[in-house]
């Protein structure tokens, strides 16, 4: 967990700053006691019911396989939660004045809801549609059924009286999912740079003036061990 690693590092920096002589002794103890100082688990925005949907969804969209752990273990639900709880979820950089009108799809999102509210409204609508179809909540579905349901939502085939579920999924949920996979791990997703390792993105510092010629047309060794913002902080 990136949060755990970060807390431990800060703790060690503070100890080392206080007393160099003591540091070696305390380091061993701190490492052993690491779980005790782990960032508390929990969501800032999602309720347990909402989290159940999101966790089930990211585990369907990113199943545990030979490539990565499941979506929750990759931090994808954590990423989405933090985005919804933060500036993005509250409408940062989004024009939010009326009058409110609907229009062509190219005009994009046109609702007065914040992204966080819209995200949760969509969860509710998706759960209603899911329960109607399967007599089960989304998180109770077998993964093949859950996957097929998401495909239908993405294709705009699941109707809701109020929430435009196709736009909800393609315009809000899916971009957050992709960001959760590939954004820098400081945002809570892409745990341990798992997606960067998967594709071979070397991350930071990206100082490639020599590499440009040395590794033109060749495998770049740095892609095997990506570095992120935390490694340079």
């Amino acid at each position, binding site marked *: 967990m990136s949060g755990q690693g970060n807390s431990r590092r800060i703790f060690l920096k503070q100890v080392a700053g206080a007393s160099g002589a003591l540091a070696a002794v305390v380091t061993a103890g701190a490492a052993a006691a690491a779980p005790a100082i782990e960032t508390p688990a929990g969501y800032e925005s999602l309720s347990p019911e909402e989290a159940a949907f999101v966790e089930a969804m990211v585990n369907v969209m990113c199943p545990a396989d030979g490539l990565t752990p499941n979506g929750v273990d990759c931090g994808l639900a954590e990423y989405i939660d933090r985005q919804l709880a933060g500036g993005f979820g509250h409408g940062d950089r989004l024009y939010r004045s009326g009058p409110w009108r609907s229009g062509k799809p*190219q*005009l994009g999102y046109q609702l007065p809801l914040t992204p966080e509210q819209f995200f949760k409204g969509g969860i509710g609508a998706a759960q209603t549609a899911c329960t109607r179809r399967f007599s089960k909540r989304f998180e109770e579905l077998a993964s093949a059924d859950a996957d097929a349901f998401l495909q239908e939502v993405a294709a705009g085939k699941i109707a809701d009286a109020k929430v435009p579920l196709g736009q909800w999924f393609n315009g809000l949920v899916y971009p957050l999912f992709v960001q959760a996979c590939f954004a820098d791990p400081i945002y809570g997703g892409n745990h341990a740079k798992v997606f960067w390792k998967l594709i071979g*993105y070397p991350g930071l510092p990206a100082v490639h003036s020599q590499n440009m010629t040395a590794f033109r047309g060749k495998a*770049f060794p740095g892609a095997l061990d990506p570095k992120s*913002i935390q490694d340079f902080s």
Partner: protein
Amino acid sequence: MTTKLPKRTVVFVGGGLTAALTSRQLTAKGVDVVVLERGGDLRESAAAKIPSQRDELRWGVQNRLAQDWAVETYTLRHTASDVSLPVRRMEAFLPGEGMGGAANHWNGQTWRWSEYDPVLRTRLESRYGKKAIPASMTLQDWGVTYAEMEPYHDLFERLFGIAGKAGNIKGEIQPGGNPFEAPRSREYPQPPLEITEAGQIFKAAAQQLGFKPFPMPAGNSTGAYTNPDGMKLAPCQYCGHCERFLCEANAKASPQVLLYPMLLQRPGFELRLYSHVLGINYDRAAKRAIAVRYLDLQTGEEYEQPADVVVVAAFPMTSTKLLLHDRIGEPYDPRTGKGVVGRNFCYQVTSSVPAFYKDRWINPFMAAGSSQTVVDEFNVDNFDHSGLGFFGGGYIYTATTNGRPIVSRLVPSGTPRWGSKWKQANADWYAHAFNFSVHGSNYPHRENYLDLDPDYRDAYGQPLLRMTYNFKDNDYRMSEYLTNKAHEIAAASGATMVGAPAPRRGDFDPGIYQTTHVTGGTIMGADPKTSVVSPHLQHWDAENLFVVGASVYPHNSGYNPTGPLAALALRLGDDLLDYSGRPRRL
């Protein structure tokens, strides 16, 4: 309420590239200048420092260096009979904020346009006949020639240390350069960037088809460079964080590196940051701009800055909005074709063909904003349009500017959007694919224009600018022709797989980034009936008001717009030196 300040000689609206270049010419001769810029100085910000500079989410996806759409956006309708709606989160183009403006977060692709671009109507009529241009395509000559702009192109390339290979020096075609290039007086000040692996593949395929590939002219410095003002660039690190980012290495030629730090040392130059311009006081009877009104965002106080000369030097959208807001010049009316402000609003028309190479390492993350290889055979009027049913064109190139992983991943068509197969496709192809892309023109159409929205307002209570805009048949046909050409090159490149040509189709979608190049709205020309400013960029209805930037372009070419607007800005500086000594219609 409003504090009236002492009069100054020249006041600029907007502290971006053009204001800096014009100010450079003026302050060199001691003319007093004040620049009003709505943003701050970002040189010490997280955007310009490692490690936060390399944050794709923050700068690349959330666009935190671009205009804050919560404060001010634009509305759109595809035709005049539609109801406009605000673009609540704009992706299509990226106006900047802060000292240096959008030219800080640019890629650095620096073109001189074709020699005949400023006389495009004359060129097309002479080649295809007087009736060849449809009445709806409101092309017009600029009233300035390339030859007049050439010395200023040359100066700008020196100031910005542009890296490239000349294709045409004084009429002599140069091997390795662009044979369609307008004649230049001398070689670029710096040699080209390193070619990428994608560039090698593209170059071989293009040559095999008989085309003449060449390196993109780049504002990314190939070496340590000192410009004529003594300002320095460091060598580019090919980090793949150019457009939408600031360069922490000071390797990207930009106003905040090369121009403003120099200007701030000059006596007579003043930059007022966090100054949001609200309007221009205009004396309709005297036909003069009197002062610029602005809000100091740090105090909430409103000021009036009188000046002998007012220069509107904002992003095209803002420059047009200000003239419409204070009704300086007659607003354009598409029903009658009369009026000028808002006329000839253009965007650009791009498309891509992805190609995949199982056994080649493309390594997209090793790239600069301009580290591309290009062919220019199908741009503008470099090819015969007889019988094609369209005018215009574009350059075709390796669109390898970065490998930022949230956005820059290519997977073969038919790949699922999530799940194990999706992950596998990303693992297989991320480092082994690139786009053969088209950077295409967009010619004006009488139905495409800008005016003020009747319903929506910005955070300061002013009307939003409204785009009435869509792609037209000319654009769709051009895109189809050019995309097929890009596909031909890709198909000759030895790829494992080549995507089907996907030309631009459907209505304009401001949620999709194509290029950040919007033009027009305050266009230049020799006829006051069809232009807002004269060939010297002097407003026809206000002798002491000038407009500079891409808003003065009568059409949008298949090239990136920075070169000509920089040349026009430097030329304006010299024109204003002349004007301030002896005010008159230039």
